[in-house]
């Protein structure tokens, strides 16, 4: 991720070559992923944790502290960067959407790090953002809420998935390619089909709803393998979209009747941050007694080499405020 932005910086200074080719996708990350499907990872200094887990009643402060434990937002958001953020605004039922306090904190940290602009990308209707208080959080912090018309195919770009086992082509919203940095902001919670949602599944929020529908097999109502197919597609999608940073809302979330609720509410008061989606999801699912090995998307993403699923090998920094 760092070298990606460096490449852009070089181009800006006129030192690059073949600028047109390199900027075919403004989002250098995606251009890179498209070229070879390689997954870029921020090199983690030996003294930095893989995950930062901060517990507290002040969720904004917890988010700030989690990022600080990882080395600070400036590690992820270079000056002048255009930042896309991806919170979950599915419904205003308790424990179903990303806390506005966390979103506010992230936008503030991005701006403090020198981000040129911060945009919240979504194809969900504006009502979801208004009802959850996320629209106010985004706008009051000086970020933009970019509402993409889910019914307009022109708003999405076909993206081959070279390493896809089940998903061969995604359809990522155009607006994503206008940004340098992606910060993934899911809420962890139950899911009716695959029992868990976190960083991996949240990226479906960048993919077009019609393409997301292909994650469901045509015979999903009778085929017991349909859930595994869905999970494989989620893992495949994650090979072509790599968030720069993930902050997971694990403060108050539903453990039944997900992802929409209402359901049993668990208040762990945690914010979990990191760059390794597999490691983060492997940790988060344990918050309500699930095992990482039982979550198919985690297994399939690990098989893609997207991260570390073994909690024993994940270096975690924890703090209680």
């Amino acid at each position, binding site marked *: 991720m760092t070298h990606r932005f460096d490449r852009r910086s070089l181009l800006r200074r006129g030192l690059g070559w073949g600028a047109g080719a390199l900027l075919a996708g403004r989002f250098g990350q995606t251009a890179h992923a498209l070229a070879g499907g390689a997954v870029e990872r921020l090199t983690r200094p030996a003294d930095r944790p893989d995950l930062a887990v901060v517990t507290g009643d002040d969720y904004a402060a917890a988010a700030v502290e989690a990022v600080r434990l990882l080395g600070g937002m400036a590690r992820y958001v270079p000056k002048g960067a255009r930042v896309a953020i991806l919170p979950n605004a*599915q419904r*205003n039922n*308790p424990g179903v959407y990303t806390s506005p306090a966390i979103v506010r904190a992230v936008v503030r940290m991005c701006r403090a790090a020198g981000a040129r602009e911060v945009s919240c990308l979504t194809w969900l209707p504006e009502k979801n953002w208004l009802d959850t208080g996320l629209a106010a959080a985004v706008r009051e912090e000086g970020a933009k809420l970019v509402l993409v018309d889910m019914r307009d195919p022109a708003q999405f770009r076909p993206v081959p998935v070279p390493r896809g086992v089940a998903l061969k082509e995604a359809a990522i919203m155009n607006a994503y390619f206008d940004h340098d940095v992606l910060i993934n902001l899911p809420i962890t919670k139950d899911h*009716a089909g695959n029992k868990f949602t976190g960083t991996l599944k949240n990226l479906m929020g960048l993919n077009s709803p019609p393409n997301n*529908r292909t994650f469901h097999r045509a015979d999903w109502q*009778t085929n*017991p393998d349909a*859930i595994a197919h869905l999970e494989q597609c989620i893992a495949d999608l994650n090979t072509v979209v790599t968030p720069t940073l993930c902050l997971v809302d694990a403060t108050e979330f539903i453990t039944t*009747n997900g992802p929409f609720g209402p359901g049993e509410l668990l208040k762990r008061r945690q914010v979990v941050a990191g760059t390794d989606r597999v490691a983060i999801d492997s940790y988060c699912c344990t918050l309500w007694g699930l095992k990482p090995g039982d979550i198919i998307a985690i297994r399939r993403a690990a098989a893609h080499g997207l991260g570390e699923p073994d909690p024993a090998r994940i270096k975690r920094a924890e703090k209680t405020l």
Partner: protein
Amino acid sequence: MRRPATGAAAACAAALLLVAAACSAPPAPAPPPETAGAARLLPGGGAVPGWEPADEIQRFTGDELFLFIDGGADLFLEYGFREVAVRAYRAPGGATINVEVYEMADPAAAFGVYSVRCGDTGDDAAVGSAARLADYYLTVWQDRYVATFTGLSETPAVRDDLLAIGRAVAGRITGRAPLPELAAALPAAGRRPHSVRYFRGPVAAANVPLGEAAVPWQAPEAAAARYGGTGGAAATEVVTLFLFAYADAESAENALSRVAAACGAVVDASGILTLTTKENQPGLAERCGRRVALVVGGAEAGRAAVLKVANGER
């Protein structure tokens, strides 16, 4: 697509109907949105003291459900979904309750969704045919409708308000239906409270305790309940009883044979299959007519006792 159901829309619809009637033989008139389907069950202003509609009614039909609850739609569609009507209600102090009324294909489908979404949580409430009140939400089943009422704040008072709005909705449902036949066939003796589930596919099965054991049976419909632990049914450890219903006895027999082959087990001379599920749970299964009973978990004596009771009550 979202369909706001406004008074203006209703007036327009009525005017159009009048014009059509004047010009030619009118087609079968479509009811205005607020009087059709699930939407007609949502109270208007003044219907519930202290609570007023906070927005327009939204309606989603068929696959449009994905637009409303992407990721959660599969469960409803698996059972057979018609439409959902959604509206928020607000009290003068700002408290908000979200109401969603789902119209399912049939009463059994609505009960199935109710049974899975309630899970073991909450207290029974006297609303509709069955209702469960949890910390901040109420779930109600009546006829082919299942409704959820969600308080956006966890105050003790919200539970009374949930019940008031729940009763206002349930009071508008004219039909009543009995439990699905298969769920009613689950023996009552020794059954653990709130453990009855009714389901029709793998998504719902994934939300039933030990539901993975049901998937290989590929039954068009299934019911489950847990027994034991608190006495009754001669089971001292908790076991789960599944009943699978097939189109006919031959289909049920084929399912028994198929699962036996998949497990590397055989049906004994008395017609009982002893198996170990993919999740390593011990089980006993037996066909009776077009149904198969499967008992999973617990100790062998408990499984045998519950299987016997299940057969006896069928």
